C-alpha cells in the first residue's frame, strides 16, 4: 500500500529525514519509535503533505506518486493524519467541519453527499466509539478542548473519514491511562484487513493497547532497526541511548 524509498526531507538546508525506506501493506500496523528530534513527526507531516520541507526520494501509495499530490488529494485517496497538536479553529463548528470534510471527500470519490440528519446519525455512532461527549459536536473545532479531548477528536474524525492509511502522530501524548485505553479501543475498532496504521510514539505504553505487526526504531532521521513487537519492549528496558550514539559516529558534532 505504502512504499517509501530513500526519503529525505529538510528545512532551510538542515536535513531531518536522511533516507527513510519503509513498506507497509494493507491490514498491517507499523509503529515508529524514537527519541525526540529523531524525525518521527517530520515523516508523518511529509506523508500528509505539509509543504514547508524540501523533500526528495520516492513515496508510492497504491502505485501513485504521493509526493506529487496536494494534501486534499491525499485525504481523498484515503490518507489520514491524527495530529500531534490538533489545530484550534474558532468559529467553525466541529460537526459542520466534519460534515464538510466528509462530503468533500465523498464528492471527489463520486459518492452522494450526506445530509445533516444522516450525518448526525453517523456522528453519534462514531462518537460513542471514542466515548466523546456529544456536547463537543457543536463547539468550535478544538477550541477550549483539553489535550485529551483534542486527541479523542482526532480519532473521532478518523472514524468518520474511514481512511485506508491512518498515521497517528503521538496520539498518546497528553493522555491519562483511562483516556489512552479509550482512544486505543477506538483505534482497534477501526483496524481491518484493508486499512493500514502507522503509529508514531515515544513510549512503548501505547503499543500495549495497539499491538503492532512491525516496530521501527528511528534516530537521527534514519530507521536504525526494525523488528516485531518485542523490539518495543527492549526499547522500554534499554532506552534510545545506543541508537543515538551509534548514529552520531566518530567526528559528529554534539
Amino acid at each position, binding site marked *: 500500500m505504502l512504499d517509501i524509498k530513500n526519503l529525505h526531507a529538510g528545512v532551510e538546508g538542515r536535513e531531518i529525514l536522511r533516507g527513510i525506506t519503509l513498506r507497509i501493506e494493507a491490514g498491517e500496523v507499523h509503529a515508529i519509535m524514537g527519541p525526540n528530534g529523531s524525525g518521527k513527526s517530520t515523516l508523518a507531516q511529509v506523508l*500528509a*503533505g*505539509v509543504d514547508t520541507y524540501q523533500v526528495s526520494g520516492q513515496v508510492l501509495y497504491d502505485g501513485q506518486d504521493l509526493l506529487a499530490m*496536494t*494534501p*486534499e488529494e*491525499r*485525504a*481523498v485517496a484515503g490518507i*489520514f*493524519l491524527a*495530529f500531534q497538536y*490538533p*489545530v*484550534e*479553529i*474558532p*468559529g*467553525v463548528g466541529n460537526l459542520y*467541519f*466534519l460534515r*464538510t*470534510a*466528509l462530503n*468533500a*471527500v465523498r464528492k*471527489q470519490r463520486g459518492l452522494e453527499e450526506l445530509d445533516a440528519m444522516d450525518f448526525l446519525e453517523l456522528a453519534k455512532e462514531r462518537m460513542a466509539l471514542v466515548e466523546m461527549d456529544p456536547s463537543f459536536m457543536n463547539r*468550535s473545532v478544538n477550541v477550549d478542548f483539553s489535550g485529551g479531548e483534542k486527541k479523542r477528536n482526532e480519532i473521532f*474524525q478518523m472514524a468518520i*473519514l474511514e481512511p485506508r492509511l491512518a498515521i497517528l502522530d503521538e496520539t498518546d501524548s497528553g493522555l491519562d491511562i483511562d483516556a489512552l485505553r479509550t482512544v486505543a479501543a477506538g483505534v482497534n475498532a477501526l483496524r481491518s484487513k484493508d486499512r493500514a496504521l502507522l503509529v508514531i510514539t515515544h513510549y512503548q505504553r501505547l503499543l500495549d493497547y495497539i499491538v503492532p505487526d512491525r516496530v521501527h526504531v528511528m534516530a537521527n532521521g534514519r530507521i536504525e532497526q526494525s523488528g516485531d513487537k518485542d523490539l518495543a519492549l527492549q526499547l522500554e528496558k534499554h532506552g534510545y541511548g545506543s541508537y543515538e550514539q551509534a548514529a552520531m559516529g566518530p567526528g559528529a558534532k554534539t
Partner: protein
Amino acid sequence: MTAFLAGLEPRIDARHPAWLQALRHAALQWVAEHGFPTARDEAWKYTRVAPILEIPFQLAEPGPRWSAAQVEALVGDYGGPCLVFFNGYFDAGLSELDGLPPGIEVSHLAPQLLADSGALEGLFGHAFQTRPQAFTALNTALAEEGALVRIPAGTTVETPIHLVFLAAAGVAPQVMHTRVLVQMGAGSRATLVESHAGIEGEVYFSNAVSEVVLEADAALEHYKVQNESRAAFHVALLSVRQAEGSAFTGHSWALGAALARQEVRVVLEGPGAQVALNGLYLPRGVQHLDNQTTIEHLAPRCTSRELYKGVVDDRGHGVFDGRIIVRPGAMKTDASQTIKTLLLSATAQANTQPRLEILADDVKCAHGAAVGQLDEQAVFYLRSRGLPEAQARSLLTFAFVSELLERIGPAPLRAHVEQLVTAQLRGLEVAA
C-alpha cells in the same frame, strides 16, 4: 472644491420654518469658510475626499420606479413598516406603513419639515451644531427627505422598521443628501434597519446623516447595511445621544461603494447607559472602506462595547479609527474595544487606530487591535481532512466574520446579510 460647491445653494423653501432657513444658510456658509477635510485632519488621515470632489455631482432627480420584487431582492423584507426612497425621493407606493401600532410615528421627512413649528430643530440641527464637518454641513443645508421615527414612551415596536435608500440610474452622476431622525421615548423599544443600495456600476454620491435620541431606559437596535454600487461614494454619520439607563446597539456592514466612510458618534449623557457597536467591513478590488467611531462617556457607570472586524483582499483598503473619550465625572466607566483585521492578499491594506482619552478616575478601559492573515496551520488542517484549498480558505474567512453575523437579531435580516457577505467573500475566493 470650488467645482463641487459651484452653483450649490441651500435648499430653502419660503414655507420652511425660520429656524431651518437660518440653519441651512449657516451650514453652507460653514462649508464655504472651512472647506473639505484634508490629510492634515487626524480623522481623515487615510481617506482622501478628492475622488468625490473631482466629480461634478448634480442634485439627484427622481429616478425610474422599480418593482417591489426588485427592491426586496436588493434589500430584503423584514415584515414591518418600511419607507422606500429613490434617489432621495419618497416612494409612497413601495412603502408600507399599514398596521403600525397607534402613537408610533414612521413618516417621511419633507412634509414634516414644512409643517414644523420648532419640535424638529433640536434633532435636525444637532450634529452640525455640535461638531460641524463638511459633509454633515452639506446634508444639513441640502437634505429635504428622509425618515422621521418617533416612538412614544413605554411603547415596544416588535417588527423591525425598515428604511430603504436606493440609487437609481441617472444620466449624470447624482448626489443625494438624506436624513433620518429617530426619537425614542422613555422606556420604548424598537429595531431599525437602514439599507443603502444602488444599481451596480452606477456612479453616485450618497451623503447620509442619522440622528438618534434615546430617552431614559429606551432601547434601540440599529442595523446599517451599506451595499452601494462598487462605483459609488457613500459618506454617512450616525449620531446617537443616550439618556440614563438607555441601551443602543449599532451594527454596521460596509460591503459596497468605491469609497465609503461611516462615522458613528455616541454620547453617553445619562448614568448607566449602555452602547454596543459592531461592525464588519469587507473591502476588495480597489474599495476603500473607512469606519470612524467616537464614544464619549459623560456620565458615570456607563458601558461601551465595540467589536469591529475587517477582511481586506486584492488592493482593498480598510480603515478603522475608534475614539473612546471618558470625561471627568464619568466614574465607573466600563469600556472595551476590539478590532481584528484579516488581510487576504499582499496588496491589501489596513489601518486601525484605537484612541483612548481617559480623563476620569476609577474606570475600566480595555482595547485590542490585531491585523493578521489566515492561520496557515488551520488551512493545512482542513486540507488534510479533504477540503480543497479554496474551500478551506473561504471556510476560515467565513468563520472569522461569523461572530458578527450571529449578533444579528431578526432571522430574515441575518439571512439577508449572510447572503450579501457570502457573495462578497466568494468574490475573494475567485480572485485567490
